[in-house]
């Protein structure tokens, strides 16, 4: 079912058995088993605060194999006694040849990994990463992209926006990003005309307050780009269910909606 191959494709065996229903989310790229298996040392080089609850952590990973926007990695911390904690995190930075990647992490209440990043970590610290992982949410920059995220769900989508910008891609890209208020909007200074913020609790003067609705989607779906939108939805399960339902009701084909849920 893998329909797009890239240079990082290590294997892509076609599935001989095809289920009666074509899968709603055909794979985008195959993932190299080599890069997914090996733990690499990543050195923290910079910390940037984004909002009161989220910060960006820049990591030097000299042997990073490269990623596509939308992919994630697994990150591991190890305590003195050998105890380890590992989590999946989306990659925020666009693919480049800097030997660095960036993660943007919420400070999760009681979170042992995000808690370490937000209260202990400083430049020079070393952690371990493996990846990039999972090709289904990747966007190679080929199809018109309709991106819908909430909270830190915007992180993998921002990698796509940055990639689109860095490469000067002509393919249409739009971002709808939901946040509680302007102070909670991650990457607020970076957005351009491609982005529409949605504020659920408080908003600047003249901007309505309320959750994502069909009215937000209608003008974007009405653009009808050549080849149609590939929709990428990322956020909590509650948000993902809400946004994906709105998309289906607005006529977006189910097999053109990719969903990444927190957890």
């Amino acid at each position, binding site marked *: *079912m893998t329909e797009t191959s890239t240079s990082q494709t290590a*294997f*892509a065996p076609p599935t001989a058995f095809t289920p009666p229903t074509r899968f709603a989310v055909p794979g985008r790229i195959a993932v190299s088993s080599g890069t997914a298996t090996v733990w690499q040392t990543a050195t923290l080089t910079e910390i940037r605060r984004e909002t009161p609850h989220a910060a960006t952590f820049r990591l030097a990973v000299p042997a990073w194999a490269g990623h596509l926007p939308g992919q994630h990695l697994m990150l591991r911390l*190890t*305590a*003195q006694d050998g105890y380890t904690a590992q989590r999946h995190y989306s990659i925020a930075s666009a693919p480049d040849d800097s030997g660095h990647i960036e993660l943007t992490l919420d400070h999760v209440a009681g979170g042992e990994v995000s808690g370490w990043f937000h209260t202990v970590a400083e430049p020079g610290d070393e952690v371990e990463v493996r990846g990039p992982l999972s090709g289904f949410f990747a966007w190679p920059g080929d199809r018109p992209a309709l991106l819908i995220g909430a909270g830190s769900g915007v992180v993998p989508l921002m990698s796509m926006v940055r990639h689109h910008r860095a490469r000067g891609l002509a393919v249409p890209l739009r971002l709808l990003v939901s946040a509680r208020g302007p102070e909670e909007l991650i990457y607020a200074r970076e957005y351009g005309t491609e982005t529409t913020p949605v504020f659920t609790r408080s908003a600047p003067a003249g901007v309505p307050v309320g959750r994502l609705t069909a009215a937000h989607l209608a003008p974007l779906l009405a653009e009808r780009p050549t080849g149609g939108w590939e929709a990428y939805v990322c956020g909590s399960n509650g948000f993902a269910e809400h946004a994906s339902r709105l998309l289906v009701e607005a006529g977006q084909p189910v097999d053109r909606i990719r969903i990444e849920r927190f*957890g």
Partner: protein
Amino acid sequence: MNVTRGFTGRPRVDNPGLPPGQYDAGDDWPVLSAEVTPDLAPADWTFRIDGLVERPRTWDWEQAHALPASAYEGDIHCVTSWSKFGVRFGGVSLDAFLDEVRPQAAATHVVAYSHTGYTTNLPLADLTGGRAWIAFAYDGAPLAPEHGGPARLLVPHLYFWKSAKWIAGLRLLDHDEPGFWEQNGYHARGNPWEEQRYSGD
């Protein structure tokens, strides 16, 4: 061992039920499906087993419920690192379905597929011997749509992406064929006790 400066982690719990690299998610039950949750009514649900079997057959909701009820009480483990303890699923043992279709001797592997078209591959041996179910209920209530309701595959001794939501059928094969996540870099078997997360683990 690469010790992370200043990292202590959660209080250590001596929990022999926790596979390596996993943590106890407590009351949380994250939802991680990659597709839109389908609107699938029990009356529209069917489950088919075919491929290398003597008598392929399809069950509807009533027919599946006519088979002997069987429950699973225990733990589940997700590849994203959370485990959930003491869950209670109700359904029918997959053995009851397989007994009716009679797998051929040549059958070694299975592709399980969903009403959304999601696929995942498993060794047939992981689906027999009272270790796999078609689950209709969770904690005494109908299984919620976002968790795979009205019916999902349940193979709790493997990572949970193998327990296909909105289960539509099993195709028995004489070889292994990677399913959706398995084509996206995940392990062919997914045994949490051997930490088989990704291809090559």
